[in-house]
């Protein structure tokens, strides 16, 4: 924890954009949260760990990607609405340009057997990555045996019975939220 260290003053919009652009360009491999903490808490000292964890828990509660949700929340804390805007653009711009370029390159070279072989290989590897994300997410949120039932029911409904996702999300979500509903403490 770096709570004892003094925080730096909020940055200018240009500086905020630049720092998020650098993180957006260097956070290879998806672990954006770790890059964000190193950049924002340790290197720039714009946030303390307590605030970082608080913003992260908002990001994880809401829909949306952690990386962009964090950019919005941190940008807003530091420089208001414009701060949220420039931080998000900075975070997304490098990957967006790369993946747009990838689409055009794919149009030219995607049918080449060597590219196909490479892409087939990384697709198999990416499935391993999805399963890891599932296990890590599960370790954080699955607490009771019923939670595992919700996981299996959701996955089976979507992947095997072709139930549409919004219906599953509403039905399973409502049941799961009701299962964990706040209960009044029983009187002594």
């Amino acid at each position: 924890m770096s709570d004892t260290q003094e925080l730096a003053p909020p940055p200018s919009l240009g500086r905020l954009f630049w720092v998020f652009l650098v993180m957006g360009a260097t956070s290879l491999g998806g672990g954006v949260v770790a890059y964000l903490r190193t950049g924002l808490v340790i290197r720039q000292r714009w946030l303390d760990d307590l605030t970082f964890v608080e913003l992260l828990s908002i990001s994880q509660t809401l829909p949306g990607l952690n990386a962009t949700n964090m950019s919005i929340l941190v940008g807003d804390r530091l420089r208001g609405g414009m701060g949220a805007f420039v931080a998000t653009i900075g975070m997304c711009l490098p990957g967006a340009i790369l993946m747009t370029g990838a689409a055009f390159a794919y149009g030219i070279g995607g049918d080449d057997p060597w590219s196909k072989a490479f892409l087939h290989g990384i697709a198999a590897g990416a499935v391993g990555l999805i399963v890891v994300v599932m296990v890590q997410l599960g370790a954080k949120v699955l607490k009771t045996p019923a939670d595992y039932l919700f996981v299996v029911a959701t996955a089976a409904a979507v992947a095997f019975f072709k139930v549409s996702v919004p219906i599953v999300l509403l039905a399973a979500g409502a049941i799961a939220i009701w299962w964990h509903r706040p209960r009044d403490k029983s009187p002594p």
Partner: protein
Amino acid sequence: MKQLWDLAGVFAYLSLLTVGGGMAALPELKELTVNTYQWVSFPELLHFYSLGQLSPGPNMMMVASIGAVVGHIPGAIVALVAFFLPTGLLTFAVGRLWTHLATWRWRPAIQTGLGSVAVGLVLAGAIIMGRGAITDLFYGAIGLAVFLLLWRTKINPAYPIIVSGLIGMGMHYFGLG
């Protein structure tokens, strides 16, 4: 022009399904872009998705690739804005109201309840993507090896995924792939 509106509608809708992260949207992403609108084939979607895991920044920047396939650079921009704006505005608003919500008694219930559904959606995504990418035992072994490596070590996921691609090329060289 109609295609840009379709892109905007599809990705704005997918945006709202990203509970617990972008991977929760995978099942519906496949359904809409491959089956309903036929913007990309299933192998193309798999390829863009996996390339996206190698790109820096948020892990779903592959929406720009699909947008670009449909409508070039305007398509990429429309897909990105549509995918990030709805949840972005929600996050912005909730971030400002958070002091009121932090102690809301239903919050832990919503977080835990939606959490297990999100894990289920990621599992469904893994099954659906696996059907396309794991075409035989050998590719299953690649996926399993990447899983074990990332689960047991703190290695950057980009490295084993690149190695998977090189193994794929090696299989092609030996006439196995």
